[in-house]
């Protein structure tokens, strides 16, 4: 039997059965194959799923640290006719705003979030924790040891990204864009930001 094929099938079986994300370590242990090879196998499997016009695909999180199966978005139409769409918590603007701060600034404390938003954010933070989109990732080494928040795997799934690298750019370049925009509008340059 083609050994590689079996490995693909084994990965598919594992990912299917697990339901949740499976770590590269777990796959490597289950397949008794070293991690680099597993990574390569999954990569090829991902391509197979693409090519063969399959209904599912393999998503990877954190650059191949964790893998999970999910349906292709193309079949959403068929799915909603049948599968009870788990009414995903509607993320209000407040929650999205708070979430974007956590996503880009993590690990971040509630106080830092509030400083950026200019408004108390306890409720929003609690809701996001409740939705398992953010979670405590540690404590700040400061008086009171405030909780540091970071995003979860559910965050990645919810926004269809595989790692924080896939977040839309809002780095200094984006900031500069905003400034340029504003400057162009007014033709003034005078504040150091």
């Amino acid at each position: 039997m083609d050994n590689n094929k079996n490995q693909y099938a084994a990965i598919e079986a594992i990912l299917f059965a697990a339901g949740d994300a499976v770590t590269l370590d777990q796959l490597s242990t289950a397949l008794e194959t070293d991690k680099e090879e597993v990574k390569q196998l999954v990569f090829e499997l991902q391509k197979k799923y693409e090519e063969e016009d399959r209904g599912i695909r393999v998503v990877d999180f954190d650059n191949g640290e964790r893998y999970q199966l999910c349906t292709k978005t193309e079949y959403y139409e068929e799915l909603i006719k049948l599968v009870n769409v788990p009414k995903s918590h509607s993320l209000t603007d407040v929650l999205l705003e708070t979430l974007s701060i956590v996503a880009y600034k993590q690990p971040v404390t509630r106080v830092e979030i509030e400083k950026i938003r200019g408004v108390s954010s306890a409720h929003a933070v609690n809701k996001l924790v409740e939705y398992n989109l953010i979670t405590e990732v540690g404590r700040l080494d400061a008086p009171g040891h405030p909780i540091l928040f970071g995003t979860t795997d559910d965050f990645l799934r919810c926004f269809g990204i595989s790692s924080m690298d896939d977040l839309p750019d809002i780095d200094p370049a984006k900031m500069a864009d905003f400034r340029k925009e504003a400057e162009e509008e007014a033709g003034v340059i005078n504040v150091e930001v």
Partner: protein
Amino acid sequence: MARTELDIKLNDFEGPLDLLLHLIDKNKFNIFDIPIVEITDQYMAYIDAMETEDMDLMSDFLVMAAELIAIKSKMLLPKEEEVKEEEEEDPRAELVKALLEYKVYKYASYELKDMEIDASKSFYGKEAIPKEVKNYEEPVDPAEVVGDVTLAKLQEVFRALMRRETDRVDQVRSKFGTITRDEIKIEDRMIEIRNDIKGLKSINFKTLLGRHHGKINIIVSFMAVLELMKTGFITVRQDEIFGDIVIDSLE
């Protein structure tokens, strides 16, 4: 400003920064050169018209109002020498920085919203571990379990157990209550022994036991003998260690 223009609840804004960005946008102000007097007036008008029962939110808006007023008064202060002015920081700098940073995350949150809509079209599966797998128990290699436990160790454990078992029985001595529930009581046995040996010169303990077999019986008999000795009905002799115990009646 007409009341109708303000007919937006403050709850419609995420916070004071959101409101300020709205005002800047609406008035087409330059964010780097905000006309502080004008924006403060408009801001205050919103606050006055504010309908919110959320005291937290209200106080956040009020804090910003105070800041705006502080900036305004700083800017209205008479300027000192020309040279100094260039080095002096614009009182609005902090506010502008905050507004820009906030604007960045607000922008990002719109992007996230779009991404969420797309991502929600993918479905994840549920755990589907077959029962056979779930119930599977790894066969254990007995050799691994035994490890370096030797036969000698096993024997040692058994010896210790046997010793402990005897100890446990012996402890009964301190728990007469539990014995009395048995067929024989020490008191009854004492009477029996007194009757048995009455008129006899002496009797071997083993003979005395007679039909009374069993650990408990031996112990109870022995306790009874000790008791009778204490109360002066008998004396007990043992010529050598582990030798026979001979009981002499004093009655």
